[in-house]
Structures are given as C-alpha cells and as structure tokens.
C-alpha cells in the first residue's frame, strides 16, 4: 500500500450534497425506484444513508472487503435493502442499479476536481469503479440469498400444506397422501399424524395412498415405518386407496404388507374402522 493517498475520500466528502442530488436524479430517470413501488422520500433516505456510510467507510481505504469491520455498516445496510427489495418484487438488476447509478454522479465530481491531473484522475476513477462494482455485485449476492430464503420458506409451507390430517369420526383419523413420498416428507407426515393422534385421542388412522403415483420399496418402507410408529403409540393403521397397478407392483417387488390392514378404497377402510370401533351405520327406517 505504498501508493499515493487516494483522492476519492476527500472528493466524496466535499461534494456529498451534489453527488446525492445527481445520484437521485439518475435513479429516478433509470427507473431504479420502480415507480409506484417505492416512495420518493424513502429512496432519498436510503440514498442519503448509503452515501454517508460510504463516505465514512472509504476514509480508511477504498478496497471493498466483505469481511472487514470497516465495511460492516455498509454490509448491514445493503443486506437490509436487498432483503426488503427482494420481498417487494424488485429484480436483481434493479437492486444492483441502486449502487451502479452512483457511478455517474461520482465520476462527474471526480472529473471536475481532478481536471488538471490526468494520472490522478485515471487512478481515482479506477478506484471508484472497482469499489462500486464490488458493492453492486455484493448486493446481487445478498439479493440472491434473500430470494433463496423466500424459496426455502415456501418449500416448507408446501410440505406442511400437502399433508393434512383430517378427522373422519370420533377416534378415526384419515391421512390422504398426495404426491411422491420421500424421506423428508415421510418424516413430516409421520410427525403430523402422530401429533394429531395424541391431540384427538384417536386409536385408528386410515392412510390413503390414492394420490401417490408410484409405490416402490422405499415408499413402502416409509409407509410401514409410519404404521409401526403409530402402533408403538397404541394406534392402528389401515392403508387404503391401493390401485390395481400398485397392488401388482407391491407383489412383484416382494414387499410384505401383511402386518397392516389394507383396503382398496377409502370407503372400505372407513367401514373397517367403524367396525373396529364397534360402530355401525344404519338406514333410518321410513327415511
């Protein structure tokens, strides 16, 4: 670091107001504010905060390093705005443009201040460019992270949504499974079924696999595990909704389902469950 001291911090500090004004007008014209999505005043606040944080940070050096404490505040600020903009539905380029649009304003002031010294001008512009590029790319990275979080949360919600446990009758639960059963889903299914068994005090559960497209050894194993766990807690399971094709596959694969009661349709399984609970359905005479 034996280079002559950078002129950039001084320039930014001196012309902070003008830079901010230029930057804001740039942003409005380039559409980074995405008209309607964001208040003019909010954009002004954010820009002002970013510029003052940047002014502080570059006093100690103009090279961006995501891990150094010098940039900690800028990092936090960028994380905050990337996250809020990701949830507001901004595209990554719109978020990065927030930083990149500062370039023009900054270059203008730099050129004006260093008109006389071409070497200093070139090196200062280069510094500013690398710095803003690094910051802009960092925003994109943060935006991506925020987006990934949103996706992960949605995935979780989807899993939760697709495994409803419904009560058919007093003491009889049904678990209509739809979609492929993998080990992660089995875990969720198992947990929600067992918890509902305890919560409702039900001793019978009908697992309906009409919506499960294929049953291979792994899926069968997952099913049997769920049944075994329910049995450990003192509840019996009936598996229903086995399509002819699946019955054939199960036999060809040599899967042993003899430890569980199986029925072809949910109606049959419900009938069996009622019988086990000692209940009957009767037609009202004269009805």
């Amino acid at each position: 670091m034996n280079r002559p001291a950078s002129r950039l911090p001084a320039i930014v500090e001196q012309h902070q107001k003008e830079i901010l004004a230029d930057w804001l007008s740039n942003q409005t014209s380039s559409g980074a504010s995405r008209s309607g999505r964001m208040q003019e005043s909010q954009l002004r606040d954010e820009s002002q905060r970013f510029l003052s944080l940047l002014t502080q940070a570059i006093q100690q050096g103009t090279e961006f390093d995501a891990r150094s404490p010098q940039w900690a505040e800028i990092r936090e600020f960028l994380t905050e705005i990337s996250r809020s903009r990701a949830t507001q539905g901004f595209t990554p380029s719109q978020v990065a443009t927030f930083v990149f649009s500062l370039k023009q304003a900054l270059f203008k002031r730099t050129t004006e201040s260093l008109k006389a010294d071409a070497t200093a001008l070139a090196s200062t512009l280069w510094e500013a460019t690398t710095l803003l590029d690094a910051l802009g790319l960092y925003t994109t990275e943060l935006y991506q992270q925020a987006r990934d979080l949103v996706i992960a949360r949605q995935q979780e919600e989807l899993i939760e949504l697709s495994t409803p446990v419904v009560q058919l009758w007093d003491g009889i639960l049904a678990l209509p499974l739809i979609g492929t059963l993998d080990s992660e889903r089995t875990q969720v299914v198992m947990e929600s079924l067992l918890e509902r068994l305890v919560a409702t005090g039900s001793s019978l559960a009908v697992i309906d696999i009409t919506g499960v497209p294929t049953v291979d050894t792994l899926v069968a194993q997952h099913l049997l595990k769920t049944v075994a766990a329910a049995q450990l807690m003192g509840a019996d399971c009936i598996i229903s909704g086995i399509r002819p094709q699946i019955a054939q596959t199960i036999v060809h694969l040599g899967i042993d389902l003899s430890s569980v009661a199986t029925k072809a349709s949910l109606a049959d399984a419900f009938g069996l469950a009622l019988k086990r609970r000692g209940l009957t359905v009767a037609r009202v005479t004269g009805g």
Partner: protein
Amino acid sequence: MDRVPILKLEDYLMVSIQVDMHDQLALTLQDDLTQKIVATRARAVLIDISALEMVDSFMGRMLGNIAAMSRILDAQTVVVGMRPAVAITLVELGLSLPGIRTALNVDAGLALLRKAIARPDEPSNVE
C-alpha cells in the same frame, strides 16, 4: 435411594416412569412390581411413559421384561402415553418393542386392559 412409585387402583397397578432409568432403578422396579402383583393379586399393569423424552434399547428391553414377568403372574401389561418423537426414534432405530401392548393415553390403556382381562386368550393390539 430413589424408587418408582407403584399405585394400586382397583384391580390395576399403575406405574408412571418420569426419570431416566438406570440398571439399579430398573431392577428395583421389576422387584417391587412383581411383589406388588403377587401381594395385591392385581390383574393388570399400566405403565405411563408420557414424561419420557427418550426411550433406548435398554428401556425397551426393560419394558418387555416387565410385560413378560407380569404375564407369568397372570397380569396384563399396557404401556401408555408414548410421545410421537419417541415413537419415531424407536422406529428409526428399528426397535418395535415386541410383546408390548400400547395405548395412546391412560383412558385408552384402561379400556384395553379391561377387555384383555375379560378375554385373556385373545390379545388385541399385540404384534
């Protein structure tokens, strides 16, 4: 020395296991329980494990042993209140607690025992 209390209610003996079992405690419990079955001529034993957050193979074997001992003394055993997380762990470990009757809660357990005492030759809900 700590002990697991055994409560007598009509024809039933009730045990609620609330602490982690170790060898000595398990032996004491088996000892106390068998003596109590003989002394009170109890017909059934209900073991509540709803307070347990972990059941390992040792615990599983101990429960199996208690069930087997009670059966020899002509008393039926039911284990009640296993937590979902415990059941999942046991299944993942491949432990299925053979020879142990289970029920969701004390009510269901008592109903099961009542039935089992009425028809002792027809064990229900046993693997």
